């Protein structure tokens, strides 16, 4: 039966998660050079546009209609057929649930654009979007949330640590292997062109994440409040963790602080409905430290995944998935983790995370390669030199 309070909360949460997508765009765009700013924000908008249409046509159906072999949904909801204003078993309209899930599919793709920064061809990207969201995101969403094999296994993922963050983060790594480094990477300075833009992006992300995690309770209740609180707590702890790990003679980069906050937000995502605030402090702080270390590792390995979707979302999501299996407490979400002696849950979490990593990484590698050898995923040297804003969009960010 419809509950107006739950419905209000889910609609708002959906709006918040949609806002996160341009938020990611601004977050990333501030960190690129001035000649690729329009491009970076546009990639987020393209993700929003393309997935918004794909999802209502087929994506929702693949992820959430009746299960086929634990792997994928059938075409029962094609074109939102049968997805209506009524509530089914929920307390919110089916359309609201569909829209909430849509926003997750959108932002997962937006996070992934990190790997393409300053070198992707817009036409190739659009095609990649369609392929990736259909063949990588939709199945994994089905496995975990749509009644697929991971759900059956009992792997927990409250708001998308696996589905959103592991999936986008490790896919980003795969894309980088195909698309290659930016020309001049490691030789020329490629510093951030506008840090306030990045900070604004983080502000929108932090704000939106309350809907991301809080809305995942699918109701405006105590569980939503818990998810809300642990989200904020873990974000703050993540910032502190990163700051502590990178403290440098009294200097503290703002980008470090907010990267840590995002790491904390990522890590708490799968756990938000299963752990309490004190666990969130630990999860967030650890996330801040290990995502920082992952970034250092990425730099050492000379991977040009420089907006760090892998280090923050991939590694942070992985840690979050495991942490859920460690800290889950029956008092919050009814499940227990390792600290209560439940080894089974921890193993389920490992299986879920590894499966998502392997699937997302492998398939993304194939899809990116496919696009690259057909229409091309990367711009020419000349276009890269001039910048994507001019070459791909015919625009200059600032006059």
């Amino acid at each position, binding site marked *: 039966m419809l509950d107006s309070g739950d419905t209000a909360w889910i609609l708002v949460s959906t709006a918040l998660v949609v806002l996160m997508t341009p938020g990611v765009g601004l977050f990333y765009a501030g960190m690129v050079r001035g000649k690729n700013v329009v491009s970076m924000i546009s990639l987020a908008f393209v993700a929003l546009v393309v997935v918004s249409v794909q999802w209502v046509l087929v994506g929702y159906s693949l992820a959430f209609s009746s299960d086929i072999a634990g792997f994928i949904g059938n075409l029962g909801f094609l074109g939102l057929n049968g997805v209506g204003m009524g509530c089914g078993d929920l307390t919110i309209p089916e359309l609201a649930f569909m829209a909430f899930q849509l926003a997750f599919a959108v932002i997962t793709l937006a996070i992934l654009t990190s790997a393409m920064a300053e070198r992707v061809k817009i036409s190739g990207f659009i095609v990649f979007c369609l392929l990736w969201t259909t063949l990588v995101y939709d199945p994994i969403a089905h496995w975990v949330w749509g009644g697929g094999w991971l759900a059956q296994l009992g792997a927990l993922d409250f708001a998308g640590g696996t589905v959103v963050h592991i999936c986008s983060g490790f896919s980003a790594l795969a894309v980088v292997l195909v698309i290659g480094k930016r020309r001049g990477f490691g030789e020329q*300075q490629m510093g951030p062109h506008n840090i306030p833009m990045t900070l604004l992006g983080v502000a929108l992300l932090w704000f939106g994440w309350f809907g991301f995690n809080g809305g995942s309770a699918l109701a405006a209740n105590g569980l939503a409040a818990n998810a809300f609180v642990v989200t904020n707590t873990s974000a703050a702890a993540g910032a502190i963790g990163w700051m502590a790990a990178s403290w*440098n003679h009294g200097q503290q*980069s703002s980008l*470090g602080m907010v*990267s840590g906050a995002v790491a904390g937000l990522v890590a708490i995502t799968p756990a938000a409905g299963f752990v309490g605030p004190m666990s969130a402090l630990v999860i967030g702080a650890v996330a801040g430290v290990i995502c*920082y270390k992952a*970034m250092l590792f990425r*730099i050492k390995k000379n991977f040009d995944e420089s907006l760090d979707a892998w280090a923050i979302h991939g590694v942070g999501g992985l840690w979050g998935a495991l942490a859920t299996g460690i800290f889950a407490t029956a008092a919050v979400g009814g499940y227990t983790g390792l600290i209560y002696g439940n080894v089974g849950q921890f193993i389920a979490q490992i299986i879920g995370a590894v499966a998502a990593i392997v699937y997302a990484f492998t398939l993304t590698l194939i899809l990116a390669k496919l696009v690259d050898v057909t229409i091309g995923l990367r711009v020419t040297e000349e276009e890269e030199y001039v910048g994507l804003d001019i070459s791909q969009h015919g625009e200059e960010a600032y006059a």
Partner: protein
Amino acid sequence: MMKKIEAIIRPEMLDRVKKVLEQKGCVAMTITDAKGRGEQKGITLQFRGRSMEVDTLPKIKIEMVVMDEIADAVINAIADAARTGKFGDGKIFVLPVEEAIRVRTGERSRDYP
């Protein structure tokens, strides 16, 4: 004959320099934002773990084309107004100018800009 005076000064000194020059009746000037370094030491920045050298600091470049006769006075006025006595106060360079043209009227002259 004319001289071009290029003064590179601290941004926070611009107002004082302008005021002093106004009192001398020299208002015409062109101002550009610049960055620079002289004998100052560089500063090391960090971006997400990577370190970056930011060794240049914001400066203001004032360009004024003036008649030979007043060049010295203008130079001294700028130097005095822009001085703090610390490193980074800047430099003034004097270059020869062969001709000046007033766009509004098209007048060309080797004397007054």
